[in-house]
């Protein structure tokens, strides 16, 4: 079986890979590119642990074929911090203890960052609905929502 050659940009780096047709973007990120920060919680788009950004939009990477990524721009959790400087959301998640086991955390951070880029002043309800596709079983979401709201307030205050 001949594999498909894909050229793409991941976290600002030009990247290319070979993939089978039936491999998902998540398979390639995790198994071929060692970007294991995106997690597989369900494989059916129901948990959000594999959330990445493709051309500016949130996507479950388990529901996108790797072959579809040709020419696209992809952002994963690994690209969120700038060197040793955490993104404000990452910092707030630590300060608010917004994670327990941490398996859902990468997907939630990627999704929350995308929200704040679109809506710097979300209501609690908007945050909750935006993140409804990111399951967390440990926290009851309370501290996660607070961390996102606090990041938004801080960012507005700094602007």
């Amino acid at each position, binding site marked *: 079986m001949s594999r498909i050659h894909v050229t793409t940009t991941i976290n600002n780096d030009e990247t290319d890979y070979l993939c*089978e047709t*039936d*491999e998902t973007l998540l*398979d390639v990120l*995790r*198994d071929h590119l060692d*970007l*294991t*920060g*995106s*997690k*597989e*919680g*369900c*494989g*059916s788009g*129901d*948990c959000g*642990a594999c959330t990445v950004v493709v051309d500016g939009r949130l996507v479950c990477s388990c529901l996108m074929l790797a072959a579809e990524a040709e020419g696209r721009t992809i952002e*994963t*959790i*690994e690209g*969120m*911090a700038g060197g040793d400087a*955490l993104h404000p959301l*990452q910092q707030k*998640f*630590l*300060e*608010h*203890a917004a*994670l*327990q*086991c*941490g*398996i*859902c*955390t*990468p997907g939630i*951070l990627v999704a929350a960052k995308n929200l704040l880029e679109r809506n710097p002043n979300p209501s609690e*309800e908007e*945050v*909750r*609905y935006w*993140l*409804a*596709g*990111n*399951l*967390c*079983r*440990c*926290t*009851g*979401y*309370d*501290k*996660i*929502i*607070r961390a996102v709201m606090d990041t938004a307030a801080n960012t507005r205050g700094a602007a």
Partner: protein
Amino acid sequence: MPKDEYQSRDFKVVGTRPIRPDGIDKVTGKARYGADITAPGMLWGAILRSPHAHARIRGIDTSKARAIKGVKAVITRDDFTYQPEDSDMADILDNCMAGETARYDGHAVAAVAATSKSIARAALAAIEVDYEVLPHVTDVDEAMKPGAPVIESGRQQENVPKGYSENVTGRSQYGHGDPEEGFKQADLVIKRSFKTAATHQGYIEPHACLATLGSDGQGDLWVCTQGHYMVRNVCAGVLGLDAGQLRVTASEIGGGFGGKTHVWMEPTALMLARKSGKPVKLMMSRDEVFRATGPTASSSVDVKIGMTKDGKITGAAATYRLQAGAYPGGIAFLSAMCGFAPYDLENVRTEGFEVMTNRPKAAAYRAPGAPMGAYPVESVIDELCQKLDLDPLDARLKNAAREGTKSSYGPTYPAIGLEATLKAAQSHPHWTAPLGPNQGRGVACGFWFNFGGDTCVSLMVNPDGTVSLSEGNPDIGGSRASMSMMAAEELGVPLDQVRTIIADTASLGQNEVTDGSRVTFAVGLATIKAARHAVEIMKERAAMTWGIDPEAVDWRDGAAHPAGPNAGKFPPMTIKEIAAIASNTGGPIAGHHEVNAEGAGVSFATHMVDTEVDPETGAVKVLRYTVFQDAGKAVHPDYVEGQFQGGAAQGIGWAINEEYIYGDDGRLQNAGFLDYRIPVASDLPMIEPVILEIPNPGHPYGVRGVGETSIVPPLAAIANSVSRAAGVRLTSLPMSPPKVLAALKAE
């Protein structure tokens, strides 16, 4: 007073809210979970599972699978040539790989290892299994009846009376006094039957491991588990290996809640690795997690409670029937012990039946047995309060267990915190906040034991005076932070001078799994004692340097001090200074402690919740939620709050939407997060945690376990809230919209 008894003190580190040490790795995606590592030459494993609820396996033809290029091993039960003598081990083996019969939809029947995931999938599809489908039973009440399909004969314990199916494997009874006499003294007696559905722990990380195993019996296993020592011991016991030859390393763990206190597939990974001679990575899909790893039991319960007009419970009785899945075991005895545990009762009897069915082997789930123990009891108490026009908090306070109460399961309580949670609930603004139309407020109490168990901790003082702490319990919700805090507290050093790691099974002695809310209590206790051990050594080193008696040295603020004027005048020696000359004073400095930490303190909680019921659709919305729980001492309050909130959220799911749904064919119909509906962010309100601290007399800092109690009250608290909002008593969980609407229309 022995040093491990509680002593009141002013804390410097304990009780603060520092950032967790594993935090940066977890917010940047670097943390390595079960599925996140690879090995050179690694193969991909996959498991074939029975599509039938109950079937005899007449034969398995693997020849076509073996012929596929890239397939390096195909195994069935025949490859497991070692037959464990211990019946628990034999059951685990049979559950990992079916023997004569497949006992439930999802039961493993064969496995492969191949050079890619897609080849492994193709190989599974090429395996031909000849099944003879057998009659099945998935409902607990049906399974108990004589004549029900029997899952396995000969497993009934001596304590089961005649007249039940052999599926009933065990029975236990608790209580004291005479409930029938008690009912006679009551002004009102209510008897009701309840049902709860099986619910899954729902951890977001599916099971995953990476195994190697040589023909010499030496192996390594990387696995997400709540207890890597347990995994080692079970894998060795199931495969006939020497435990010492198998090293197990715990990955970061993506949730467990009890579901990762068991072995579901690791022996299969090891067997594939041995047969193929290569490392094998084996991961479950979400579908496999639901079908083949234990949900908790479903239950069927009868409760009868009598109460006087002024709210005194005079008699109480309950019968719990819990289905344990396809193997003996079960947790009905825990329901029977926990149901009435919050109350001081003269007449109480409970009975629990353990029942086998054609469902996956039931697993522990956060305070196993206690939620379905409390739900029927707390529901009937609420109904009694409604009918007798009593305040439900007052009535509970009137009957509340306190120090000196003989508990419903036998022992007399030491200092406990139930009253404190009830009083905190009464004085909280939530209790008196106004309610709108179609809204109701429910309260309920809950109890859990908390455990200790085998624990080892090693604490090394490094040459620069920093501290490395090794413990053996996977960190599921911030325990490395708590251990570092307790070590820093005890040593008197800044928190950033301590780093805690989870050691593998070859690096530290046996540790009980991360369960029973034991870690902060037991590992914390061992950490404190290991630190005290290191302090003793450092005092000796300082004494040697000063030329005085070690008894004349005090330890405070991270330094040795002469104990008093008679000890001599020496400037304090800090941990750094002592560490720097350790080679000159006798060698490296390390403290350690190994203990079976028994005597954990029980804990109680009271939950309060407001819901609104849509009278036209039966939909339930949770509006406000407050948790009042005794933590003994909150070492890291953020993570104590997190346990309160997380337990409440899981309880909300259990109460409203989560359930295992089986078809008439005995197959699981909702093996995915789409139709197994755990709460999403937009389903929940903020969950307010109120931490109470009634010190556990058996821990130096007063710590009690906090992880499990929080899932005990929600089922009843929400049922009570919904029943009050809807004006009709709901007696079956989950209270999904069709059930609520049907109840409303029946009214």
